[in-house]
């Protein structure tokens, strides 16, 4: 089994989000960056479990600048065999997907994993885009994946429950919670990661079609109005007359 896991770098889940005063750029001062949790906890770990059970290799790929080598090394420490970084500062999901597809096309991966979304743009687009570039099936929001020969049985999150599907390799799958359990890299893994191959390739040309041009914080709440716990009639009145939501 030859597996590719796409990983991205995102601000930590508890990071305070702010932007430059003109709203044109993310303010990274004081922000800690991590591997996107869906990529690390679920996609990467399930990929490793599959190759541990049946043999094969796990390659991780990231599209980003040299700073990202830190999170790529973490992926190698958790257990990936090797890594590829496409050396670019991506401006759109489609750019990222095209770079990954251009790399993957000649490599004949059986499975390409992504996280269900990155926690910065929450777009959930890259997996679908890679699948279309490669014209292979895409199964999104997988919470369980079992292989039998070259056929995968995948349970996926849908509104109000789940759906079980079958698909043969090659395919792209996005991983959500439940797919695997987070692994903490051990010292041996961290040492070995330093010598594992990390190949840097240059991007192929692409003109972005949709780009973020401005960022803002949501409007501040006006402050909480406290209601007497003995007087729920008053809360009902406020919800009806002031908030007009019931």
């Amino acid at each position, binding site marked *: 089994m030859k597996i590719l896991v796409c990983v991205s770098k995102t*601000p930590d*889940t*508890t990071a305070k989000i702010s*932007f430059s005063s003109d709203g044109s750029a993310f303010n990274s001062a004081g922000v800690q960056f991590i591997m996107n*949790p869906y990529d690390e906890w679920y996609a990467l770990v399930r990929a490793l479990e599959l190759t541990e059970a049946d043999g094969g290799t796990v390659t991780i790929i990231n599209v980003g600048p040299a700073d990202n080598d830190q999170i790529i090394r973490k992926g190698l420490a958790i257990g990936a065999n090797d890594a590829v970084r496409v050396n670019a500062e991506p401006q759109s*999901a*489609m750019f990222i*997907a095209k770079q990954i597809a251009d790399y993957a096309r000649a490599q004949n991966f059986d499975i390409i994993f992504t996280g269900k979304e990155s*926690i*910065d*743009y*929450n*777009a959930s*687009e*890259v997996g*679908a*885009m890679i699948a*279309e*570039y490669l014209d292979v*099936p*895409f199964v*999104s929001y997988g919470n369980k994946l079992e292989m039998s020969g070259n056929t995968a049985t995948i349970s996926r999150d*849908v*509104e*109000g*429950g789940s*759906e*079980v*599907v*079958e*698909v*043969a390799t090659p*395919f792209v799958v996005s991983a959500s919670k*439940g797919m695997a359990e987070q692994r903490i890299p051990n010292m041996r893994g961290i040492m070995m990661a330093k010598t594992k191959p990390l190949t840097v390739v240059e991007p192929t040309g692409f003109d*972005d*079609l*949709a*780009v*973020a*041009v*401005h*960022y*803002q*914080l*949501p409007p501040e*709440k006006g402050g*909480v*109005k*406290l*209601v007497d*716990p*003995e007087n*729920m*009639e008053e809360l*009902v009145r*406020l*919800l009806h007359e002031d*908030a007009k*939501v*019931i």
Partner: protein
Amino acid sequence: MVLVFAESPKGKFKKIALEAVTYGKKTAEALGTSCVALTVGNNVENAGQLGVYGASKVYNINDASLNTLDSQVLTKVIAEAAAQLGAKIIILSHTSTGKSLLGRLAVRLNAGSVPGVNALPDLSGGFKVKKSVYSGKAVATFQIKSDIKVLSLMGNAIRPDASGSAVSVENLSVNVPAAKVTVKEIKTVEGTVPLPEAEIVVSAGRGMKGPENWGIIEELADVLGATTACSRPVADAGWRPHHEHVGQTGIAIRPNLYIAVGISGAIQHLAGVNNSKTIVVINKDPEAPFFKAADYGVVGDAFEVVPRLTAALKQFKAG
């Protein structure tokens, strides 16, 4: 032309499909063009009613294999329909289907795409749309530069406008390839509004102390016609099903009213719910961080306050 793909799971339109049609109509009006709707499957009920919500015409691809949706097949089908009709803007619903489709369709049509838009496009200087980013902690404006554009509309972002009238439905003939993904089983809860579409959500957390205490939450939800949700620790502990988990790692929602009971309000929880129009927090701890994000707060014991609120609502509904 604006083309809206109106999903019809089990042959029926949900509110989020009607919202997409109204969004398509308003976008088309602003651009001085028309809005048509596309439905697929051989089981679509009352497709013509999409005219009520703004479609000037409905096209249906009458093929039983499209009753369940696969992104690879559907991408080819919608792309071909868009080409036949000359559509330049394609609107999807931001559902598990729409999200799986959007990126594929964008690649196939060489179109700029923005998922989960929450307001009508700003046409003053190009084509700009807004979406929530950083798990609800910020809003980004995206500019789409391509001729063809693909958007998916977040649930509850606009209200369906039922001011039109039913229109005719025409069959559209496109090549439907065989799906490589086979659906074996669908395990969904029937009879409740899915969380992303719910207008009122009643959510509870660890403050409920155990799954056996959820009765008062369900009673409150019942009287409001609300969908129930929960915090991450509650889903992790198996007190409630995973599909009820709202927050950064669960489902992001934007109901009109979100009532949080016994949830402290960790930043990851707030990220998934802070687009709610009105937030009510019930917690016995006055220092719970959730109060800072709330519109209305009740400091008190949930086991006393919630039944009291349910009784007050019953009286209100009866009155």
